[in-house]
């Protein structure tokens, strides 16, 4: 398969998924580039055990999570070198919230929701993004995440519960949404 064909078929999907993880356009574009660099490197070794789309979804999710970890480890190294905060676990979340898919007047409300999502574990975050933002079906999400439907359902219930707890901790949440 030709690279350009794959790029133009999937670049919008890749950018939008990355955007749900990092919530700003610059970082999402950087992730998109990295995803397609990986695709171009591995395109010849790709075994068609899954569809190209599922393969690209997986690369995008892993790349986005790695990007966030790298960004936060840089931040935590810098902070710990200044304040000697070696044992303090820093929250993994993007530095700037500038999601272009959200209207300006609703920005504050969405910022709070995404702050809560960012505090979930990697799998819980991914299940919320795929099912509720990207509107993927359960079977598609299960295939992308390499889980059974049952495992996916239980993961989603845990994610929902944790998100509820995180959001209800915030006093202003109900006023803003």
């Amino acid at each position, binding site marked *: 398969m030709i690279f350009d064909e794959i790029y133009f078929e999937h670049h*919008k999907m890749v950018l939008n998924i990355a955007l*749900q993880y990092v919530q700003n*356009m610059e970082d999402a574009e950087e992730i998109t580039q990295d995803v*397609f660099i990986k695709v171009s490197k591995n395109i010849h070794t790709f075994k068609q055990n899954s569809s190209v789309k599922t393969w690209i979804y997986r690369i995008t999710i892993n790349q986005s999570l790695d990007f966030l970890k790298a960004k936060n480890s840089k931040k935590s190294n810098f902070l710990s070198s200044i304040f000697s905060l070696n044992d303090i676990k820093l929250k993994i979340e993007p530095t700037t919230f500038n999601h272009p898919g*959200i209207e300006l007047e609703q920005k504050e409300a969405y910022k709070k929701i995404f702050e809560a999502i960012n505090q979930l574990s990697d799998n819980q975050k991914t299940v919320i993004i795929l099912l509720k933002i990207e509107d993927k079906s359960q079977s598609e999400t299960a295939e992308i995440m390499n889980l059974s439907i049952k495992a996916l359902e239980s993961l989603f219930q845990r994610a929902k519960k944790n998100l509820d707890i995180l959001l209800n901790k915030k006093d202003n949440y109900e006023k803003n949404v």
Partner: protein
Amino acid sequence: MKKTSNINIEQVFDHLASVKKVEPSKDLYFKTKNAIKNQKTIPLFWVIAAACFLIAIVGVEFYTFSSKKNTFNQEISIVFPETNNILYHE
């Protein structure tokens, strides 16, 4: 109390579903293509740089070794002048 909390989370999901899809910028393709191109040229660049560095080190080593050898020979010849082992009055 729990019911109110559940309604809230469903409202949150409704809000998340209304997040708009974003169109990628047109130059993202060219940026990506350039990034792929640069990925391929960087290793070649480093290979050439490493080869030049090695050649330079070997050259410097060879030069210093040969110049040391010359000065050592000169010093030896001053301390022990060479004789040709020929008897003049044979």
